């Protein structure tokens, strides 16, 4: 029974979490749970929002050390708004992801934070990017992160289909978060979901008792 590396190795308040983002036909869904814990023993917040808006149509989810993630996002937000003023156009999703990546890579020795960036831009439509702990940046149609993600790799691989409809994708994201929260003790609370399309941004909050239930509950 090997010990798996979890966020519990992060000092201080960790988001020990489940985050995900998935593209569908015309947009992206990005979501997370809402639990913050200290050392995996004490839930320091039941309702923390880990889905942060960095620009009109670009959102980020954070994982790892909460302090590091918040600091990086704050810096990234500033860089991004400055960049969009200079370019006189809304930033591309890849720009937002690259800003996060630069910060994570240049400071990789001090930081312990990873991000999922999702959004919509005019050039490439809906996109999802992952910036991992050391500062790698890749684009994927669907991605999951955080300690709770281990338990839903199989579910996501099996159930995600490219070009789903908005409702199917929301249901998929909802189910995936519920399953991860059901198995991971440092993920829980409510499910925060944000749907981003060309026309706008919609927040969906699913309280714990409204989450989908599965066979053993």
């Amino acid at each position, binding site marked *: 029974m*090997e010990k798996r590396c979890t966020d519990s190795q992060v000092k201080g308040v960790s988001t020990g979490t489940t985050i995900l983002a998935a593209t569908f036909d015309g947009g992206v869904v990005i979501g997370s749970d809402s639990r913050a814990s200290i050392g995996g023993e004490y839930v320091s917040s039941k309702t923390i929002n880990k889905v942060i808006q960095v620009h009109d149509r670009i959102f980020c989810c954070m994982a790892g050390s909460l302090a590091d993630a918040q600091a990086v996002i704050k810096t990234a937000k500033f860089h991004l708004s400055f960049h969009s003023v200079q370019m006189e156009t809304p930033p591309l999703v890849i720009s937002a992801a690259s800003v996060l990546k630069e910060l994570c890579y240049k400071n990789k020795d001090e930081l312990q934070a990873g991000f999922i960036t999702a959004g919509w831009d005019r050039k490439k439509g809906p996109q999802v990017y992952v910036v991992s702990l050391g500062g790698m940046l890749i684009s994927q149609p669907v991605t999951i992160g955080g300690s709770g993600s281990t338990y839903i790799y*199989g*579910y996501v691989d*099996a159930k995600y289909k490219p070009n789903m409809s908005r409702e199917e994708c929301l249901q998929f994201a909802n189910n*995936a978060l519920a*399953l991860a929260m059901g198995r991971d003790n440092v993920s829980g609370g409510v499910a925060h979901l944000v749907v981003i399309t060309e026309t706008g941004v919609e927040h969906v909050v699913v309280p714990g008792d409204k989450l989908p239930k*599965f066979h*053993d509950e």
Partner: protein
Amino acid sequence: MLEETGPEWLSEEVKTGTTIIAIEYNGGVVLGSDSRVSAGASVVNRVMNKLSPLHDKIYCALSGSAADAQTIAEMVNYHLDVHSIEIGEDPQVRSAATLVRNISYKYKEELSAHLIVAGWDRRNKGQVFATLNGLLTRQPFAVGGSGSSYVYGFVDAEYRKGMSKEECQQFVVSTLSLAMNRDGSSGGVAYLVTIDEHSTEEKVILGNDLPTFFDQ
């Protein structure tokens, strides 16, 4: 490193770091496993069958340290043979599981293997028992091994009560395929054993016949 330490697989413990699953249906059980045995980063056996018979209609699925798991299975196989002669009939699945559990519990500090025991007996038909760390619990289905973490969400979502034999076999094969895709310590081929009142059927599904998913 300037010294010659030899290949690392000579000094690493051999683990079955694996994915195993057993599920009960009305009339029997289906067991499944992958086939990879690793020693550190090397795969020392890519076709090992981790579904080991304990008796005609009782099998166990091995995970964890390969040596520990095989030893437990062989010891229980012997004890069950003696036991079934003593009682004059086929042993119950619960007896086999209890024997495994007794060894796992007594030597829990020394051993690091987890066996899932499943089979068919006349009294309670198909049963699946988990014996992790020395507990004994009967469950509708059980998953184990390093690859199982990745498929907890999938099995939670997909399992339904009252599945047929074919649906169970499909469920097991899909679960193994998903876990083998994500777990570095699981891979190779999928072994399936289906046990019911009339027969015990062993099957191998080769790597390229396994179900594929959207990113493959």
